[in-house]
């Protein structure tokens, strides 16, 4: 049977991808950030997941305003890196897992979560930066990836509660998939940041710390937080954090926090990262 073993949350700032691609990771500005991911790289190299369900948001790359799916599940065999306006990142093509992806789509739709099924989708920094942070610069990504794109660009994004419960439905889907697979789920985006307007640059360390704490010990409480609290306290783009609740919902009620890292800034953003393992 497929087994969901762990969840990872991380920010997905585009400047991090550029720093990796341009060989700037040893520069004083970036070095502390990349050092913070070294334990995680070791951890995932030992864990060797077969498949990662990667929850992220598209930043007007695959989806413009023509079609705005709230939840879009990538069911294709491959996902090319998107050209975000300066050419695609020179990272490997992302290999999907169509069999598990379609199983998840069928399972959660019948579980009343009406996902959009996507068979042709370029993936932007939202998906590739987390892979780079955890795996570095390999010739091929070491596992298959199922992208789950969540709309957080057009207001309103899905509620935290909806995300948390979708995570639970995804877990039920993984648990009912027959082949033996080691599965992980990533929640990406955040933490506090605001990219627009005179309030740009907002960072809220206290909010972010409490979010990280509650992600482990009281996700149900987090899932009840209204959108206004995210925007007011964590900035207009801090609302991306609802995506972390999909990851958390897919894990056991009780989890073990194995690693945490927090760093300000990466460009305009507070970088947060946490690894949670199921107890069993």
């Amino acid at each position, binding site marked *: 049977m497929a087994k969901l073993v762990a969840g990872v949350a991380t920010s997905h700032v585009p400047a991090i991808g550029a720093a990796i691609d341009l060989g700037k990771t040893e520069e004083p500005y970036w070095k502390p950030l990349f050092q913070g991911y070294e334990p995680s790289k070791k951890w995932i190299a030992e864990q060797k997941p077969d498949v990662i369900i990667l929850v992220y948001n598209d930043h*007007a790359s695959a989806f*413009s305003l023509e079609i705005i799916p709230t939840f879009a599940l990538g069911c294709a065999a491959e996902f090319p890196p998107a050209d975000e*306006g300066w050419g695609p990142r020179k990272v490997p093509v992302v290999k999907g897992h169509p069999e598990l992806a379609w199983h998840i789509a069928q399972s959660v739709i019948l579980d009343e979560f009406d996902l959009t099924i996507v068979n042709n989708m370029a993936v932007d920094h939202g998906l590739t930066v987390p892979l780079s942070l955890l795996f570095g610069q390999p010739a091929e990504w070491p596992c298959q990836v199922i992208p789950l794109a969540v709309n957080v660009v057009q207001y309103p994004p899905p509620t935290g509660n909806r995300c948390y419960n979708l995570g639970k439905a995804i877990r039920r889907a993984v648990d009912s998939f027959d082949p033996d697979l080691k599965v992980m789920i990533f929640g990406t985006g955040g933490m506090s940041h605001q990219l627009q307007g*005179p309030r740009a640059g907002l960072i809220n360390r206290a909010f972010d710390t409490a979010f990280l704490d509650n992600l482990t010990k009281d996700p149900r409480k987090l899932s009840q937080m209204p959108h206004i609290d995210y925007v007011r306290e964590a900035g207009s783009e801090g609302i991306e954090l609802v995506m972390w609740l999909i990851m958390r919902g897919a894990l056991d009620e009780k989890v073990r926090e194995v690693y945490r890292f927090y760093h*300000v800034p990466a460009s305009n953003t507070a970088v947060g990262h946490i690894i949670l393992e199921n107890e069993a």
Partner: protein
Amino acid sequence: MKVEPNPFDDIPGTTLFDAQRSRQGYHLNMFCMSLMKAENREAFKADEAAYLQKFPMTPEQRDAVLKREWNRLISLGGNIYFLAKLFSTDGKSFQHVAAIMTGSTQEDYARMMINGGRSPEGNRSKKDWENRG
């Protein structure tokens, strides 16, 4: 029926990309989206005003694009992730544009970020901004 005030309107210096903004900014944002293609970036750079005529935007929106008035573009329905296609075409970064939107220099803005960013204290409500004068 009484319409409740929108609580998001109370957050200072922040524009929510909601339904109304999305309708207002549709063609502006779709123009930005067109800059994802290298040949469109070239055509835009060759003659910006002519290129903008291809999109049924308002004269105000076209003017704000030509002048790169970022806060005005946001107020006219632009979304930051779409506007990013425009400033990327100019070779500018998110941090460059964020600094302009806050009325700061890029150096001062970058220093603020290295020192922990803009505090939420005094930045939660429009009342906070009025009180600071």
